[in-house]
């Protein structure tokens, strides 16, 4: 009843070949760097002298938002969260065994 797997191999081989081919043929977007850079240079050159003067004065990018830390659990909200979390997990754990309808064969 076992069937030949030749067709599937052919299709797989074709798919892989197509994949490799497309990956190799299609270069990443920065392949046209030269032409694009020329366009950018043209753009910057068109800026006003005042604008160019400000280029060197811009501050570095803003630091992204900081993360919460363990001190959260020392706040009133953190304590409330711990209490509720403990109660919820505790009761669910209790339910897991207490409410279990254990099958006769397990």
């Amino acid at each position, binding site marked *: *009843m*076992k*069937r030949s*797997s030749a067709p*599937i191999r052919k*299709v*797989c081989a074709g798919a892989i070949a*197509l*994949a490799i081919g*497309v*990956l190799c*043929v*299609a*270069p*990443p*977007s*920065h*392949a*046209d*760097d*030269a032409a*694009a*850079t020329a366009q*950018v240079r043209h*753009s*910057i050159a068109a*800026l*006003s002298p*005042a*604008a160019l003067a*400000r*280029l060197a*004065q*811009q501050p*570095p*990018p*803003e630091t*992204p*938002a*900081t*993360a*919460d*830390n363990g001190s*959260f659990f020392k706040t009133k*909200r953190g304590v409330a*969260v711990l209490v509720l*979390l403990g109660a*919820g*997990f505790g*009761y*669910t*754990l209790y*339910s*897991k065994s207490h*409410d*279990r*309808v254990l*099958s*006769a064969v*397990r």
Partner: protein
Amino acid sequence: MRRIVQSAVVALVVLAPAAVAPLLAQTFSGTITGTVRDDQGGVLPGVSVTLTGKTGSKTIQTDATGVYRFPAVEPGSYEVAADLAGFKPARQGGIEVTVGSSLNVDLMMHVGGLSETVSVVGETPVVDTKSSATQTEVSQDLLYNAPITRTAINVFNVMPGANSNSVYGGEASSANALLIDGVDTRDPESGTAWTFYNYNMVQEVQIQGLGAPAEYGGFTGAVVNTITKSGGNRFAGLFDFIGSGSGLNSNNITPAIATANPSLASPAITKKYADFTTQLGGPLKADKLFFFLSAQRFQLDTNPSGPVTNNHQVSPRFNLKLTWQPTPSDNYMVSLQYDGYNIIGRAGVSALLATDALTNREDAPEFVWLGQWRHIFSSQTFAEVKYTGWLGYYDLNPEVNLPGHFDGDSGLYSVSQGWHYYADRNRDQVNASISHYADKFGKHELKFGAEYEHSKVRNRYGYASNANFPNGVYYYDYGGAPYQAYSYGYDVTAVNNRTTAFVQDSWKIGDRLTINPGVRLDAIRGSNPTAGQVYSTNNLAPRIGFAWDATGNYSTVVKGAYSQYYEGAMASVFERAVPGVFPKYTYDVTGPTPVLIDTINTPIYKVDPNIKHPRVDEVYGAVEHALGGSWRLTFTGIYRENKNFINSISPNARWTPVTVTNDLTGAPLTLYKWANRAATQSDYLITNVNGYQYRDPNGNVLGTANPFRKYKAFMAVLNKRLSNRWSAQISYVLSQATGTVDNTSDAQVSSNQFATPVLALVNVNGTLTNDRTHEFKLLGSYTIPVIEVAANAYWHMISGRTFTPFEQYSSSVLGLSGQSSTYRRPLLEPRGSERNPPERIVDLSFEKIFPFTGRNRLGVYMQVLNAFNASTITATQNRVPNVSIAGVATPVLYGAPGTIFAARQVNLGARWSF
């Protein structure tokens, strides 16, 4: 001090509206890309572009063409900021990344002051001009607010074209692929829903069904992707409780309904509903390691409609998820879920015939796991590897552990349901994919992937035992006394192996046309440890679609696709071909000692070596048009046709026409008696039954099997996203589902419809059960000013399901002694000749939100399901002339109400989130 310029400057900063394309959906991430330009339109290279989300920030530089790209972005809310010396920093916030979205966020930078930031609130466009697929997203907000029954499997029934789990006319439930974080949680036997998860875990549900890309397979209805929450840099928690009680139920049973069907006189009552969730997510190490924990306990106690008085369900559920980002290019995620379902009072026979003694206890625990690694090679390429799976069992033990009895005279069961059933399941799956963005001959978004699935099914069934029958027995009574006794059972193991490869592209040609080609190959094998491989199919599914930006301004898109979707690996298609079914022994028990009078060896079926896997072919086209900034109008036409129906036949069976009386009309009805049963009852073949000819003893053709199912639909959908305090989705679907194979649950491969011409030929062609000629749905939300109460409504008016009268004829007339009574129940009228009344239901919910300091939010809410207490008949008693009901002296006549939509119920809840 920075000056924030808000959305009024949108026109100054945002050049092009973002475009959304659901390409990488099974990756469960999205992409943000765009071009940064100066105010004269020139592109800006070397700009630092920073993406900030809940797990931190990533910064990249624009390339020489001013283009940046963040691939593999987790779903969530983000801000993109562009910084370049000499220019005002530009920021766009409110960018909502959904699964599979490809957002185009272009930024314009102005030469400006040192401390000025130009910020805008981003707005995702309402029309997707790049994808040929149509998908529906059910957001966390919608899940929170909409009055949708909190059963995850039912969520997708709110989408246009989906009702009673049948999507676009497909077979209900088992035709739909159900994925949780990419884990296929369906039953590997029949494809139905198996695991249960916490409704409050859901971050987003995405429903794909039309023009789905090649990475999706294993369905002929829809794909339901459920994405669960994960932790981030900020602690985020939810504590939610919702409950109800008997005082919050109504009664919608009218005197006419109670008279016609006394078993419905007392409506189903929710005695206790208590469902709480506690969950917390947050950082273990800032920007690097995050956790998410959740626990839920669900309890539902009901007094169901019918003779059973108590049904008690409890399900504890735990979830843990860890996310680790050791480098900006690597993301690891592991998750584990435990859930158990415990039920007391589950009806063990037909609901109308079950009493409390005729119920069983269900024990069904399971674990679901996922391990995932994603690596970003460059802004053009990333890869993902997943190992997923689940393990569980589902046991049903009789409430009364004694042999069961069925009385052939009264049609009633007694003593016990009499049987046990143990189902073991597991699935392991490995997926790997690579995504690549290329600019050659247009712009490409390519994805290649491979998957391997190994899943196992073990089913055990048997009867309760007593002293005379230690191996189990079931009694057939007549007139209240045992007449015969049966001994039977099985222990069947079946294994699925599926190997899949796919490739797909989103090929943008020019500025307005996108082609979405793809192909998927599924190699499905079915086996048994003893019998070896018994089932083998190789399924090549092409997909081709297009999307054309008709106006060139992202406001109107014309799209369409041709797709083939194959069903998943399901053991039910071949499990009759594996050993493990014990003989059926029949005893005469009218005397003091049981006497063996018959032995039937259940045959092991053969499988057609040229069998083809079931699939559906789909052609669809749509026009989407943006109306203003918040509205979208979509017209869609759909045609679907199922192919390769699998069923079983007895190739050499011969049938003699017999004439019986159709007791509905009094007219003669031609049925077929199995003429050579003794010679052919052990010879069954599992095959694609299309074209099989049923013959009489002389070889004359009586009829030809013609299994088919077709669905045609026109859909109009109007979406209004949230603005000015309200949002809505209004849809109308005109559809027709016809065929010879129904679209109810398990109607496709696990039935034996074509084993007899009685079910294959007689009145078989017509309208399917889940045919909803007219479907109108309104899902709306409005926040009432002053009192700040969110009011939400789900109003649906849908044509009722069809039904067909049937009659059960005697086994001797049809030569089917000892066979299931199902084979003796021909349709008395063409399929779907009758229709239940339209369903007109309004569900409401209200929430009063009390804002606290910071991100705290306390809400008190109320759900009112079936707000107008409609007494809608959802099923009709369709057996002619009547059916017996436990505890009711007079049988219920054909045409009486069978089931009624649940009466009005009020649920009350409260939740604190931050």
